[in-house]
């Protein structure tokens, strides 16, 4: 199966004599063996997107089909790995070829030499179906890698290995119903553009705890949920993605750096090994897979990186893990689609994006979800997808943002105005929404506190009232407000500055447990309720606003997790005492 190049246009080449290839087959282009993928077929002419630089290529050079679609290798060795958009290990390439990826370089996607200790969990004679766990490999201290029978296979265990093996050595044999005996290694290969099968998609009922107060309290995302973070540049999209990658209570994190700056991936590489997971105490890197296609890497591989990422995420989901995938940013990915589409001379849609932009985005996000995994065990696994969107000029009326918003259920709108005021995370509380809030209410009320949702509703109400009052203040000044409204404004300020504002770079403040979040919010709202009561008893407004306890409320976020129970109990007591003192003082006046 080989053809000849007739046209080269950037990352797109057209080859003739390709009558027998199939859509999405991987091809090797020219003597340099550049990797490409068939994305359009017309008669015997195939359009191929090449994942590497095409300089120096010309008509007449050969194109050879491998006969396989673009696939990822799934086996132990994924965790802690850093791959490019088509799963080439960047650390190995760096050792072989230095800073830049040499064209046509051929390295195995996963380490073929490393031996893994395989512990079988089935015995000879067991009947197994696709998805059943054959055995386990302790890949990192944090991740137990389950070796599963590939989807669609079925049979009886004939032989199973116990001991150390590489990922390509056969470790078990299965006798199928028709009597043939097949042997399987740990390694599974799966085409990136096909989603891995599952038994049933479930409704998300449990939140993914992120330790970010504005997210967990106001706009929660469910395990298996999808979220988008659009925002102009400089508003902190990447920081939010990093925060989620660090603190989200997922078992596995897949971080896809897609068309963004290289130093952002460096940050991840430098920080993650040093940071500790608050639940396991192990370095965060021990549960992370990185896919890096930075802005200077070939554009076609960027298109693939999202699929590579989600396929790896699905693989871990099938083991019954809760996986979170962050894509930063889907706009760059859409731009890659646009570039390929225009080179293919397709009819452009809105702003030059291809007409299939929305369906491609949906294809990606729809692969997220909480599911019953295949196999007889009935494991539940989840993939939560969080995509950053970088709309040009911060205007979310552009096609990528709009197409994304139609699919996702959580929208964290980053606002340039908030970022300018140094309010981080700059998630705009009036524009953002989470469609999971109602579903997750039961969970929060049962596992944190029965009045959690009442508290959150009240918080939102105060913030909304503040926005209305602010307009009056802007027109006629703060004097025009009644005292009750002044208290509301003060409380809203306290919510904004003491609760919603969170410093990602402070050791304590970077992560807040749900219990502490509840205590913090409760403290602020208790002050509000008591202040209104005191006002009705004619306590002076200035005395209320300048209460010294409010300063302590402001500092509550820096109370370490370990001490929060004691410290917050003290704060509540102090708050009560302060108000009693104030009201008594008022009585003495009379």
């Amino acid at each position, binding site marked *: 199966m080989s053809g000849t190049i007739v046209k080269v246009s950037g990352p797109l080449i057209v080859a003739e004599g390709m009558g027998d290839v199939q859509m999405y087959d991987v091809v090797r282009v020219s003597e340099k063996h550049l990797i490409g993928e068939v994305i359009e077929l017309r008669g015997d002419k195939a359009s191929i997107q090449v994942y590497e630089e095409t300089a120096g290529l010309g008509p007449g050079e050969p194109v050879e089909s491998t006969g396989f679609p673009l696939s990822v290798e799934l086996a132990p060795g994924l965790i802690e790995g850093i791959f490019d958009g088509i799963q080439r290990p960047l650390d190995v390439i760096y050792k072989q070829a230095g800073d830049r990826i040499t064209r046509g370089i051929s390295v195995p996607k996963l380490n073929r030499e490393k031996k893994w200790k395989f512990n079988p969990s089935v015995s000879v004679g067991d009947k197994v179906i696709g998805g059943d766990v054959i055995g386990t490999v302790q890949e990192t201290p944090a991740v137990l890698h389950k070796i599963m029978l590939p989807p669609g296979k079925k049979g009886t265990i004939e032989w199973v290995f116990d001991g150390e093996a590489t990922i390509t050595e056969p470790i078990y044999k299965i006798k199928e119903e028709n009597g043939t005996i097949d042997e399987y290694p740990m390694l599974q290969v799966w085409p990136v553009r096909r989603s891995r099968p599952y038994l049933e998609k479930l409704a998300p009922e449990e939140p993914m705890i992120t330790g970010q107060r504005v997210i967990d309290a106001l706009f929660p995302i469910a395990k298996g949920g999808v979220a988008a973070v659009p925002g102009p540049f400089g508003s902190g999209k990447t920081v939010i993605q990093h925060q989620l990658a660090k603190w989200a209570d997922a078992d596995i994190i897949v971080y896809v750096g897609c068309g963004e700056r290289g130093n952002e991936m460096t940050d991840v590489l430098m920080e993650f090994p040093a940071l500790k997971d608050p639940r396991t105490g192990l370095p965060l890197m021990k549960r992370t897979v990185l896919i890096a296609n930075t802005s200077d890497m070939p554009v076609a591989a960027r298109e693939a990186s999202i699929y590579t990422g989600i396929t790896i995420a699905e693989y871990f989901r099938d083991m019954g893990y809760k996986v979170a995938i962050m894509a930063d940013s889907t706009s760059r990915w859409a731009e890659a689609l646009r570039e390929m589409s225009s080179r293919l001379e397709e009819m452009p849609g809105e702003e030059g994006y291809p007409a299939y932009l929305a369906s491609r985005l949906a294809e990606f996000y729809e692969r997220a979800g909480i599911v019953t995994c295949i196999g007889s065990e009935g494991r539940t696994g989840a993939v939560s997808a969080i995509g950053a969107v970088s709309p040009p000029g911060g205007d979310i009326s552009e096609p990528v943002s709009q197409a994304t918003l139609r699919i996702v259920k959580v929208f964290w709108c980053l606002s340039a105005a908030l970022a300018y005021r140094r309010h981080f995370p700059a998630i705009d509380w009036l524009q953002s929404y989470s469609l999971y809030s109602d579903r997750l209410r039961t969970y929060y009320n049962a596992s944190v506190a029965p009045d959690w949702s009442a508290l959150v509703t009240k918080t939102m109400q105060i913030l909304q009232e503040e926005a209305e009052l602010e307009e009056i203040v802007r027109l*006629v000044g703060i004097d*025009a407000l*009644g*005292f009750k*409204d002044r208290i509301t404004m003060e409380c809203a300020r306290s919510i904004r500055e003491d609760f919603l504002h969170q410093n990602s770079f402070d050791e304590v403040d970077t992560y807040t447990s749900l219990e502490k979040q509840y205590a913090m919010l409760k403290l602020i709202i208790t002050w509000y309720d008591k202040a209104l009561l005191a006002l009705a008893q*004619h306590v002076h407004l200035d005395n209320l606003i300048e209460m010294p306890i409010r300063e302590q409320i402001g500092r509550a976020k820096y109370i370490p997790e370990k001490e929060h129970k004691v410290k917050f109990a003290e704060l509540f007591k102090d708050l009560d005492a302060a108000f009693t003192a104030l009201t008594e003082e008022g009585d003495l*006046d*009379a």
Partner: protein
Amino acid sequence: MKKRKIAVIGDPSSVMIFKAIGLDVFYEEQPAKIEHRIHYLADNGYAVIYITEKAATQVQEAIAMYATATFPAIIPIPMNSDALGLGMKQIKANVEKAVGADILFKEG
């Protein structure tokens, strides 16, 4: 409709005269007492409270508290000795807020 009442607060020599026209007059001169009186009157259905300018300057916080409420309307009145021009100042401030400039400067 509930019948609303009018009260007057101040030193006896300035406000006693209001008794003649049937208003409720309260003699108060200490700030804490004046304040308490205002709150008491506000809670007890008084719609208008006249207060001497001298007393008003001592309890600005309490007056500000009701400034945006419908009732009571607290209105400073000049005393028997001299006028501080509090009412005019308030009107000026409001005009300035409304039109953005002091257009009553001649009348000050």
